[in-house]
């Protein structure tokens, strides 16, 4: 234990590393831009006007603070720890993704960039990016795997309504990782005027750091809200982890609070023996998309396809800070399967009148598993990272219901 840091909140180091993870593994063409982005981010961090504009937009445009809801019926049903839901689903555009997009488009403006690009899987980050691009009057191109375009038509139409161009990516497996490859290819050819809004705490430094910082509003609010509601810190935090931006946003402000147990939930898909998206449980460290982190891969380092019923968790990697928190043991990561998430999706809807995103349903499922094992005097906060309206077709399909 002697090599553990005094604080878990000081990372990354000046080279963008969290322990052995993170870093800047990009082509030389992008490297000067990454360094430029870091300089501008440092300047923005030191500028009170930047934070003031960020806070203003979060309050008046996004609708923050999001409530911390005591899920009394779910708590009674499970008969254990008190469960609070951090209601990121109530944000404008329906998920936590918008927090980060607001921060990054302010950075883009600060850097004088005139075009916005982003990758998206299910389309939530694409919609959030297209939304802020509309708000700031900047042209926006969203890269989305052709397979995802076909199965997420409502979000594709939303993005188009918001004025974005949606590029259906035909390379590779035609899903999120290929969309990210294509966004990087576009960026490398347009670095002079284009800002890439990465949707999660991954990619080359400083993205994992700045996305985390913009999302930390979740944990900062939750801490103040739970202190008001319970007069003390929670005993446990639970959040779903794909790339891991909602999770790190909730976790980071609590990392140095020793009494708070922290659980991240990975998508175990059909189970860890079958097709899944649990990079920590089923992968090992490697280099992809600009950072070193746990990846699903074969013995030659070829990236393997991820699977989850939740398109937002369907990615073969995970943010590098999560890989570090996993290795040092500060955060425990647990798998939840498609079937478990699907059951929790329905249970929360019926008990609380809240339709969670399938991503969030993974965290609810973990809470269902853990809460009954804890005493009624214990308190947990579960991140309801998004709303489930986008998933009703997927859920209907999985349940064999025809709409």
């Amino acid at each position: 234990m002697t090599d553990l840091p005094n604080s878990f909140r000081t990372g990354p180091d000046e080279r963008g590393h969290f322990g052995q993870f993170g870093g800047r593994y990009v082509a030389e063409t992008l490297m000067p831009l990454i360094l430029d982005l870091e300089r501008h981010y440092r300047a923005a961090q030191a500028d009170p006007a930047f934070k003031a504009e960020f806070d203003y937009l979060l309050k008046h445009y996004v609708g923050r603070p999001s409530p911390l809801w005591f899920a009394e019926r779910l708590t009674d049903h499970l008969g254990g720890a008190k469960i609070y839901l951090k209601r990121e689903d109530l944000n404008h555009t329906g998920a936590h993704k918008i927090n980060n997009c607001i921060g990054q488009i302010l950075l883009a403006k600060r850097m004088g960039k005139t075009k916005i690009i982003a990758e998206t899987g299910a389309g939530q980050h694409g919609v959030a990016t297209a939304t802020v691009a509309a708000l700031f009057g900047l042209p926006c191109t969203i890269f989305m795997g052709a397979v995802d375009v076909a199965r997420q038509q409502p979000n594709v139409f939303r993005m188009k309504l918001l004025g974005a161009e949606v590029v259906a990516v035909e390379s590779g497996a035609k899903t999120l990782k290929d969309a990210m490859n294509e966004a990087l290819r576009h960026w490398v050819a347009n670095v002079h005027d284009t800002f890439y809004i990465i949707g999660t705490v991954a990619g080359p430094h400083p993205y994992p750091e700045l996305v985390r910082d913009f999302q930390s509003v979740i944990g900062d609010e939750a801490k103040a809200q739970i202190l008001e509601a319970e007069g003390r810190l929670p005993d446990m935090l639970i959040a779903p982890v794909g790339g891991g931006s909602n999770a790190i946003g909730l976790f980071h402000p609590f990392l140095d609070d020793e009494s708070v147990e922290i659980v991240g939930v990975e998508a175990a898909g059909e189970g860890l023996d079958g097709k899944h998206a649990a990079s920590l449980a089923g992968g090992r460290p490697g280099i992809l998309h600009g950072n070193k982190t746990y990846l699903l891969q074969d013995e030659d380092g070829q990236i393997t396809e991820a699977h989850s019923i939740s398109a937002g968790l369907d990615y073969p990697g995970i943010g590098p800070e999560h890989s570090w928190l996993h290795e040092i043991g500060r955060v425990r990561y647990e798998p939840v399967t498609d079937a478990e998430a699907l059951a929790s999706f329905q249970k929360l809807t019926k008990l609380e009148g809240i339709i969670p995103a399938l991503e969030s349903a993974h965290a609810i499922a973990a809470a269902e598993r853990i809460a009954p094992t804890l005493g009624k005097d214990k308190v947990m906060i579960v991140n309801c990272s998004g709303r489930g309206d986008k998933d009703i077709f997927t859920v209907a399909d999985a349940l064999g219901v025809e709409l």
Partner: protein
Amino acid sequence: MTRFAATFAKPRPALVTFITAGDGDTAANLDALVAGGADVIELGMPFTDPMADGPAIQAANLRSLAKGTTTADTFAMAAAFRKRHPDTPLVLMGYANPMTIRGADWFAAECAKAGVDGVICVDIPSEEDAEIGPALRAAGVDLIRLATPTTDAARLPDVLNGAGGFLYYVSVAGITGLQQAAQASIEDAVARLKAATDLPVAVGFGVRTPEQAAQIAKVADGVVVGSAFIDIIAEHGDAAAPHVEAFTRTLADAIHGAKEIAA
């Protein structure tokens, strides 16, 4: 004298060619490149996620992987090439993950054993050199660095620190095989690079015709052609070798004679 030094000591610009390992009949295509007059061979290690590559080389990566090409296969192709062609410099080009997954020391040792002279790793910039650079240098394998239109004067010394073999100038800010850079911008860039290093400078990205290659060869020490070969292999499959050789010859003739015409 290393194979790179011997090659670039010749009083003519070098033709540097790229093909993807396991795409088509690689051994026959490698022989065709040498027979056609290629001076340096870059052999691409296939990767599932070739982020810096355009559609042609992306497709070549996927074709190769679909046939089941492994890292061991790539090294076997390299070792067999070295036995058949003792003097032609051979470079492995690819992405960080397949190169580092078993540890950089393992990779560097395999390169040395197979007779590989240099390595180009697209997504390890000088900032992350520790990931692979020390292991390669210790094994006597040159790490070939990339310079780009966005590499400014402040960064250039870092890019050159630890670089070996030759310097690869990526003439367009973009991905492989698409746009072509303006000749004037290439001339300026090469002059700037040559003022900063004694390494030979080879220019690539978007070079597809003998005419383009000849223009660049007037000012550079080498010209890299990749996607145009990949297109030939995509079209002719396992029977591509004669076409590869014929195209190599037109490029080699244009490049090798470029400076004489200029003079």
